[in-house]
């Protein structure tokens, strides 16, 4: 429990640093805004339209693949730590699990989901 308390102290100190620097810099920096300065940056032109543009749906596909294989990684962590006590049986099971997932990767690969066009 005390170990987690130490992490909590670290978190508080970390947030404290940020708040302190923001507060300190607010005291000493100039503040002189006007309409042209408050425009967002678009190579010195007047900004056109919203920044929430449509983007390539490949990013979405990569997001999906990421979720699948990240869950796999989560399963691998406890398996790896307990591997010393489990031995051969656990190895065979994990090989089957990974083969199934590798088949999934291979499928995505052949479908062209990993290709950036």
């Amino acid at each position, binding site marked *: 429990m*005390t*170990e*987690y*308390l*130490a*992490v909590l*102290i*670290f*978190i508080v*100190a*970390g*947030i404290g640093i*940020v708040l302190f*620097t*923001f507060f300190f*810099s*607010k005291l*000493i*920096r*100039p503040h*002189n*805004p006007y309409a042209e*300065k*408050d425009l*967002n*940056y*678009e*190579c010195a032109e007047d*900004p056109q339209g919203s*920044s929430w*543009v449509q*983007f390539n749906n490949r*990013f979405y596909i*990569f*997001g999906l*693949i*990421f979720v699948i*294989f*990240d869950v*796999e*990684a989560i399963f*691998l*962590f406890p398996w*790896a*730590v*307990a*591997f*010393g*006590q489990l031995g*051969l049986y656990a*190895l065979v099971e*994990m090989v089957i699990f*990974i083969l199934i997932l*590798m088949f999934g*990767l291979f499928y995505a*690969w052949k479908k062209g989901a*990993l*290709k*950036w*066009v």
Partner: protein
Amino acid sequence: MLEMILITAVKVFMVLSAVLTACAYSTYLERKVVAHMQHRVGPLYAGPYGLLQPLADAVKLAFKEDLVPDNVERVTYALAPVASFVPAILIFAVVPFSNGFTWFGYDIPGVISDLNIGVLYIFAMTSLGVYGIVLAGWSSPSKYSMMGAIRSSAQMISYEISYGLSIIGILIIGNTLSLTEIVAQQAAESWVFFGNWYIVKQPLGFLLYITCAIAETNRAPFDLPEAESELVGGYHTEYSSMRFSMFFIAEYAYMLGVAAVGATLFLGGWNGPFLPPVIWFLIKVFLFMFLYIWLRATFPRFRYDQLMQFGWKVLFPLAIANTMGTAVWVVLSGQ
């Protein structure tokens, strides 16, 4: 209990000061090293050999006006630098920097918090880094920020899996998630002081770790989110003054973080002959930092499609193969 809190607070203060100083001087190191690799001299005027340059930069940034565009999403815009900075420095909460020492009659361990799930904690903190970037890009009204943030998040999640898998070999051999125990397992047994370091047993894992760590921290040659020729400043285009400097420090804190974790997992942490443990630890961390800078000065930037394909078609299968190979080797050698 109160004693323990006080001791921890003092240690947290010292580690945070050390990390922030190291961040500041990493920028100096980077500018100097890259400059000399390109036959320039680098920063020279602030103090002897330009040693006060980081300080001058910090003062300059603190005195800059904080420009906030009219049409930002206020809450997330303000939160993003914090969300980027805090997880970056939190990595150092579990990294053992020394073997412990005695101060005023108290035995003080050389780590702030010896979590028994240290490795998982580190990967959790590294993954949280993507939130700061996405929030910054999404709340800024600039298209450059948005594109930079999307690219960056796609890159980080793609390399995160291989990053996590690259160290599973160590967990299979070491059977623990605690960084202190992993360091203890790498202690020298004979005059070959690096004989037990995991880089010897996991060379492929080490290579994968460095590659993915560079991609995770968005450094050259994987620095597409900040490709200034196409995306201006990337996700922090609309940030200025101290808010910008938070992103900047966070980037260097992440680099130092993955360097410290790499040194702990693969290079034996603070283990080493003759010199004090803390010095050994710093030497290993800065070797990593030098490698980062060296790579930046050497390689051109990847193209985006090459980057994604490299992550998924090369690094990921290699990481899986390394994991399975280690498991088979452990079973066969009957350990």
